[in-house]
């Protein structure tokens, strides 16, 4: 049985369910209310140096509001156990009606303090919990006092009904790489059930079937980097889908190839320009591109020309301040405004082309005119290289990044003039949705899964195929397995993945 969780902390864990007892503590009283307060005061004072949480608990324990409320209920005829429970629910319900961030955050603390008092009263020691090795801890909520009583090295995952990703348990679990599934209907899990938590997919499997087990097992192997590396290209329904890597340095190229990438779908060259205090010479650039080309062998190395502007500036290149840099002189616009600099890069790339399977990718394309101008400049470069007696690759494919709405709508005509398309979903999403990707206020809109973006991707793929060229995706969205599935269904020819560890994952996914 698979249960969807609400929010979760990423990771993979499995083991037998260990249910933390929750709800009303009942039983006979083994100590008085005074003794219970004293015992808890002593415990918390000892812990208070360890964490602010316990200091806060101590303050709550000593706050007259709690003690007075408990005393009031006792004089009203309740047992100390009942009185603590009543005081707790009274305070919690009062806090929840007040618009104060501090008080809302204290609700869990009040519950925690009260539950420990109840345990004391009933003689249920709040000592160390005897958790079996590798257990999945299942609880309504996990409080700081619970985690402080656990040997966390024995916990393989937490599954809770309540709590948020900012709660204490999530913070300490996240720091230790323990997955947490929140918002789970824990009534469906019994003590001793075999439970698997897939924090990346927000899924919990209880006593999984063979199929479910296999699916989770694959996720775990991926998570732990055990997935077999596939070196050959994979097919989906008879159509080859190349899985490339994105690279921002020569080391990245090596890592992607080692992870089984079919090539480099996006070699960002900004590092070449940003790491120095003057514009790098043709020779300097040539050495870098040649090394990357040699690493790729006969696999394609897609070199994107300088994508400066927007949020990136160069210390040695003067640029006018702009009100809207993302709608300003960036990418190919900046290169066409500085053709001398652009030519140095193009010549270095053309020369590196003789050492491998190099392709050129132009960023921020909006019109056919830009492509034609780039082709002219490339011809000028070739003529110069010839007269300088330097070797170069004459037939290097030229591709356009599709990351502006203009390049989507003018796609049919641009496709006639280029050799391939590469969709940059990061910027395409931002420009189509008119939503700044760094602005949390519009983060709901900044979503490549939005139908507007998906339709655009569909248009790009059909424009490319109608013109007989290939279309790939090099944005972050290609690394999302769910999105990758959509892209492959749409007929995409390649996916370029940022994290090398995801390259085998995506390859396995396509093959299936």
């Amino acid at each position, binding site marked *: 049985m698979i249960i969807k969780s609400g929010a979760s902390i990423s990771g993979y864990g499995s083991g037998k369910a260990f249910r933390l007892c929750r709800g009303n503590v009942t039983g006979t009283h083994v100590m008085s209310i005074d003794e219970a307060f004293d015992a808890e005061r002593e415990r918390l004072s000892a812990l208070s140096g360890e964490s602010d949480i316990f200091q806060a608990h101590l303050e*709550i324990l000593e*706050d*007259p*509001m709690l003690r007075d409320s408990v005393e009031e209920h006792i004089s009203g005829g309740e047992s100390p156990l009942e009185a603590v429970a009543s005081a707790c629910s009274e305070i919690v319900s*009062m806090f929840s009606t007040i*618009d*104060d961030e501090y*008080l809302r955050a204290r609700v869990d603390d009040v519950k925690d303090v009260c539950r420990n008092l109840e345990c004391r009263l009933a003689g249920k020691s709040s000592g160390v919990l005897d958790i079996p090795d590798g257990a999945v801890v299942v609880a309504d909520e996990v409080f700081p006092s619970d985690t402080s009583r656990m040997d966390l090295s024995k916990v393989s995952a937490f599954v809770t009904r309540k709590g948020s990703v900012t709660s204490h348990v999530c913070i300490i679990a996240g720091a230790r790489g323990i997955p947490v599934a929140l918002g789970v209907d824990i009534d469906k899990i019994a003590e001793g059930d075999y439970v698997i938590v897939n924090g990346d997919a927000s899924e919990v499997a209880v006593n999984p079937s063979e199929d479910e087990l296999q699916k989770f097992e694959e996720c775990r192997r991926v998570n732990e980097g055990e997935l077999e590396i596939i070196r050959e290209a994979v097919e989906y329904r008879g159509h080859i889908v190349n899985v490339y890597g994105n690279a921002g340095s020569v080391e990245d190229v090596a890592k992607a190839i080692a992870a089984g990438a079919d090539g480099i779908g996006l070699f960002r060259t900004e590092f070449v320009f940003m790491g120095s205090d003057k514009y790098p010479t043709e020779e300097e650039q040539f050495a870098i591109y040649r090394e990357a080309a040699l690493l790729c062998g006969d696999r394609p190395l897609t070199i994107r020309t300088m994508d400066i502007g927007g949020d990136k500036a160069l210390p040695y290149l003067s640029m006018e301040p702009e009100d809207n840099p993302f709608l300003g002189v960036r990418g190919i616009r900046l290169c066409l405004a500085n053709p001398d600099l652009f030519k140095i890069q193009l010549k270095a790339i053309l020369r590196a082309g003789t050492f491998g399977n190099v392709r050129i990718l132009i960023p921020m394309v909006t019109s056919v005119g830009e492509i034609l101008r780039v082709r002219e400049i490339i011809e000028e470069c070739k003529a110069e290289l010839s007269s300088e007696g330097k070797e170069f690759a004459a037939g290097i494919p030229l591709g356009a990044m599709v990351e502006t709405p203009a390049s989507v709508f003018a796609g049919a005509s641009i496709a006639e003039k280029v050799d391939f398309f590469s969709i940059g979903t990061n910027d395409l999403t931002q420009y189509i949705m008119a939503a700044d990707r760094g602005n949390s206020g519009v983060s709901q809109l900044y979503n490549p899964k939005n139908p507007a973006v998906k339709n655009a991707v569909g248009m790009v793929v059909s424009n490319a195929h109608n013109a007989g060229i290939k279309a790939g995706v090099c944005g972050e969205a290609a690394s999302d397995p769910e999105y990758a599935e959509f892209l492959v269904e749409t007929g995409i020819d390649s996916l370029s993945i940022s994290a090398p560890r995801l390259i085998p994952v995506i390859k396995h996914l396509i093959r299936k």
Partner: protein
Amino acid sequence: MTTEKVVVMAPNGLHARPAGEIVRIAKSFADSAVTLTCGGKTVKATSMLSILSLGLKKGTEVEVSADGGDEAGAVNALVNLIQSVTE
């Protein structure tokens, strides 16, 4: 018993930090029982949770009362504190 009314001036109301200061001052006048009253509700000034539960916003009038040996000093100190919180 000494009583004095004071209006909360802090733009964000009396939040956790000033409430903590009230508690510390109230506790230091150990000979008096110090209370705050607002909207018909009276709470001990030694309870941070109680003070916060009053939800004291800017412009709210609070009555500070103390009963005991140093009651005048206690009320004076708390009124001065509440007036001086301007953050």
